[in-house]
């Protein structure tokens, strides 16, 4: 016979509760090799191109970076050039490093040229911007129609004097430079047979996901602020649970 009572237990709104003390005790029982954690951090520094941090961390942890710091330096110089608005320098550097990268990645090349156009506009060099768009970007749009939309969006920057009200003002935001720099960084890493993404951000995404899944069944102390990693009990949530790691 069917035990109806049994069925209700499963759908009960009463979740099992784990206290903070119990939780901390459970966590401390999980053995994580310090060396593995160090490697995870080194992996982040190396791939993101933080040369100085990698060197310092190497001294502190006794861990050698998986690749030569020189090649991190190469990537860092390129990233910095873009962050500083000097796209031409970045292009020259990447061509010195490996001339195949931009010859075989039309989309990346387009984004670099687009970034150059954005920089002209940022500096108010409107005549140069128009000439550059016509000479350099229009032919790319003809070759690959998929670029046309982005090109039109960029040109729309010229239509608004006040970038704060411009619907395409985001292109002038530092995050646009960061996006371009990251795309280029990834392409270089791929050309060197290296991982293009650091492992850490994915693991943090996994942590957030796992907490959400577990929360369906269980009330337990969560990490809501990823920077402080403070354990918060019950359903108390802090407003800013998003981390810089995640907004890459």
């Amino acid at each position, binding site marked *: 016979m069917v035990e109806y009572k049994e069925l209700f237990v499963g759908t009960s709104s009463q979740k099992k509760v784990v206290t903070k003390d119990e939780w901390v005790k459970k966590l401390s029982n999980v053995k994580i090799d310090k060396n593995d954690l160090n490697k995870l951090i080194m992996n982040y520094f190396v791939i993101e191109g933080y040369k100085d941090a990698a060197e310092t961390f190497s001294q502190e942890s006794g861990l050698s970076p998986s*690749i*030569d710091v*020189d*090649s991190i330096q*190469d990537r860092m110089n390129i990233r910095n050039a873009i962050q500083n608005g000097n796209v*031409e320098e970045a*292009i*020259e550097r990447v*061509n010195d490093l*490996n*001339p*195949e990268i*931009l*010859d*075989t*990645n*039309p989309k990346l*090349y387009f984004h670099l040229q687009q970034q150059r156009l954005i920089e002209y506009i940022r500096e108010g060099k409107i005549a140069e911007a128009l000439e550059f768009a016509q*000479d*350099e970007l229009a*032919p790319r749009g003809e*070759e*690959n*129609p998929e670029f046309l939309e982005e090109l039109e969006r960029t040109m729309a920057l010229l239509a608004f004097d006040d970038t704060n009200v411009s619907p395409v003002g985001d292109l002038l935001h530092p995050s646009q430079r960061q996006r371009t720099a990251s795309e280029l960084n990834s392409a270089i890493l*791929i*050309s*060197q*047979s290296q991982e293009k993404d650091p492992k850490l951000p994915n693991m943090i995404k996994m942590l957030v996901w796992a907490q959400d899944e577990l929360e369906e069944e269980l009330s337990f102390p969560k990490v809501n602020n990823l920077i402080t990693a403070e354990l918060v009990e019950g359903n108390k949530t802090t407003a800013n649970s998003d981390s810089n790691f995640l907004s890459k």
Partner: protein
Amino acid sequence: MNSLKHEQAVSELDSSDPAVRVKALRFIKNHIIGNKTKKDLYIRLHVIPKLVKFFKAKDTVDSQVQIQAAIVLGSFAYGGEENVTEIVKHDAVKPLLECISLQNDPRLIEAAARALKAIYKCPTADKNDIFVENHLRDLITLLNPDALNPKTDRERIASIHTAELAATIIARCCDTNEQQMQIANAGAFPALVNLLTCGFSKAQEAALDALAYLCRENPEFGKAIVETKSETSDSPVKIMLNLILDKSPTMRLIAAKCLTHLSRAKAIGEYSDDVTLIVLPTLVKLLDEKGPVREEAPHVLAYLIRDNEELQKAACDSDAVPKLADFVTHVVDQESSYYDPVGDGDKLKENALMALAAISSLTDDGRKLVVEAKIIPHIVAAMSHRSYGIRAAACQCTRSLSRSINILRTSLVDAGIATPLFKLLSDESTDVQTTACATLCNLVLDFSPMKRMIMELGGIEKLVELVHSLDNTLRLNAIWALKNLVYQAESEIKEAVMKVLTYQTMENLISDQETDIQEQALNLLRNLACTRQHDIEEVFKGLSESRLMNVIENKLHWWNEEIIKQVLYVINNIATGNERHKSAIMNRANILKYILTYMGHTNPEIRVVAMWVVINLSWMEDKSASSQVRVQKLREMGFEEKVKSMTNDDNLDVRERVKTALNQFSQV
């Protein structure tokens, strides 16, 4: 566009100061990389011959100039086929090959190898230069990741990258068996197998690719690769089976391709289960990827399962068919672009159709799945696509499907394939014509509801026209289709075909330089002379008795077993005729002697047909005197004795015929 600064850069290449030249070269380089318009501009400014000159005057040029010049040449080559033609025209390949010698600056070696890779990427580039002097040996030396003596990690990355470039060049230079052999003899296998475990994915992919092309359709080299000793304890196949599990889809695809080529070269041996359990499922899974991986996966899959019923069944058990069907129905046709002249969508569609054709080529299960995927209307539409590759692939699909009588009579008729298929017989591409003709072979058989329609469209005239074409495969398929058309056909159809083809042409085809065509032409004759005495009489009239018997006698001493079989069938069909037909054979002592000989042929199929001939020749319609004389003559020539000696033949079919024949002899 203001081209003044570019013109100035070109003129600065003539400067006597190396520093000025390097500066100009770097200026040009940074403008043309990634930029088709600038590449074209500089080619118009005649920069290529100036670059080539830097490599010829050895004593006056410093290596910085050469490095930058090689990079610029390489970048031009990335601009497509026209640019490569221009580079080759100005004799740039030989000097670049000189640069890859180990005595040069490592950066020059790397830059030159990169340019060569880009040049050889173009399928029309001439590969011959690489096989002269020491170039091949130099390339193989570069496959060693330590060849450039790297001291820093930066140099190590460059050295491994050079090994990757060398492997890629090799992969693109083994189009022919002769080229495969030269590369293998120069010692490529151990070096490439070694590169498989270097830990740098790009170089590993390039090594896999090179190994794949070196053993393509080459069992000897397949075996040699499998038996190559690697520096690790694992065998090469084991290493590849490891790489096929890699995180990167590109690596998985190339490993699957390499294992596919080894499997096709029958070199996979003890790992054949892994082909079914790992390689095939990996390829099916790769259909979920994007871009070039998704595009090539069905192509490799089609090649893997072609002619292999077991693997086709395994593919049916996977979810390959719905995925492939999706590519055929949902991929939007794209405009071609500079970077991808064929267009991703077109190639994917073509490869998906090829894979569907392969899955349904040998098993009814596969055909059923394709029908259930409801894509036949899309296949029929694809037969009129602008890309000839898609037309040919769609045609190949209908060919596979038409092998099922059931589908032929239902789905294919409903989809109305006869008209589009017939149009493809006149396609501008010979490939398409050939495939269309092969498909037509299945549509003109007697049970096909489309047979009438194809004849009404002018099928006989078209096929006869193709019999006279220049392409041997096309001629073969055309005569094949005509042979099928008259198979068990009504007398009027046979007469209609021969009126257009003519007996003279058939006689010529029976003596064609291609044995396959001879065989089909004899088979046509066999089908003409089948079933009815009236039909046999037509053949006698068409060729005349003496010419017919001469053709038979001539062909009987042919060495080829298929030809012998077909001639014996022709004789057999004539021997089923009336007394006049039988005596035409009986009057030719040579023909009878050959039949007697072939009764003892090592091939049981030939013995069976020869026995049928004896049975029909010794057949007595009535107890007439002529029949008695005929049997008596056979007995005198030793036929009865020969038949008696065959009572213990290995082959059951032969023994059964022997019994019948002995029974007939005993009645006289």
